[in-house]
């Protein structure tokens, strides 16, 4: 029961974060919203594992955490240098 209420709360939070990602207004607002959005499915995954009584699946949440980080760094590197290949000197 408690895990189900927690999951529902997380779903509401996902909806709110998603609406910020869709509203914008600037591109970086969307990046920020996506960054925040990824944390909530991660938590939802952990809670769902407990709700179903099979918490071994936390590995997947770990993958989420790492992928989120790699993704955001790639996005912001692209943002700054317009390229992923070389790291140029800072302007």
């Amino acid at each position, binding site marked *: 029961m408690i895990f189900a209420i927690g999951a529902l709360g997380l779903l509401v939070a996902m909806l709110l974060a998603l609406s910020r*990602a869709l509203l914008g207004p600037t591109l970086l607002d969307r990046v920020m919203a996506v960054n925040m959005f990824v944390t909530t499915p991660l938590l939802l995954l952990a809670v769902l594992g407990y709700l179903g009584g*099979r918490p071994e699946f936390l590995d997947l949440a770990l*993958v989420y955490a790492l992928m989120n980080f790699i993704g955001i760094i790639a996005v912001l590197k692209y943002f700054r240098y317009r390229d992923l290949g070389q790291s140029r000197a800072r302007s």
Partner: protein
Amino acid sequence: MNLDSGIPLGDWEAIINVALLGLLLLVTIGIIRVRNLFAVVMLAGIYSLLMALVFTLLDAVDVAFTEAAVGAGVSTILSLGTLALIDSRREKVPNRFQFVPLLVSLAAGAVLFWGMQDMPAVGSADAPNQVHVAPYYITQTQADIDVPNIVTAVLASYRGFDTLGEVTVIFTAGIGVMMLLSAMPVIGARRRRRREDDDGDGDKAPNDGGNA
């Protein structure tokens, strides 16, 4: 390994499934509406994460793993690499209502729905694929191969030659892409120079997002 259909969530399963699918629908509408390719790439990443959650609910944890790692991580980075090579800012916006594509997708959806009628229920124990070789894998993997993860055992041992062929194909494709990309920096540099001529500062991030 337990053979239940999906994670046994009880009454909550329907609510959570509907909520997740609703979010998927919202993201899809966002992908269609947003007119900035960069934002579209990030929304596609969100789509993959939600999809991985749905797979987890269907008890396909290995697929969810792949979806989270490849769909949300690697393919986002590859799309960004593509955006760095192409000119992503000038995009033609169709101002006319496109009737034929809508018709085609509606027809395809209808055919899929029609085909779904003959499918067995999700996770039912007497579905054809569950009674063929699956019971053998589930009961014998531990004795035959002694690896805890059955999916890994099937991929790497029972169907090892199959996987070897797939890996060869992917390796060949990777070499092809690398050869293409090694020719690309020239094009990328030219484009960057043109961009810098355009707006003075090629390195600054654009502020033109959000005109959704």
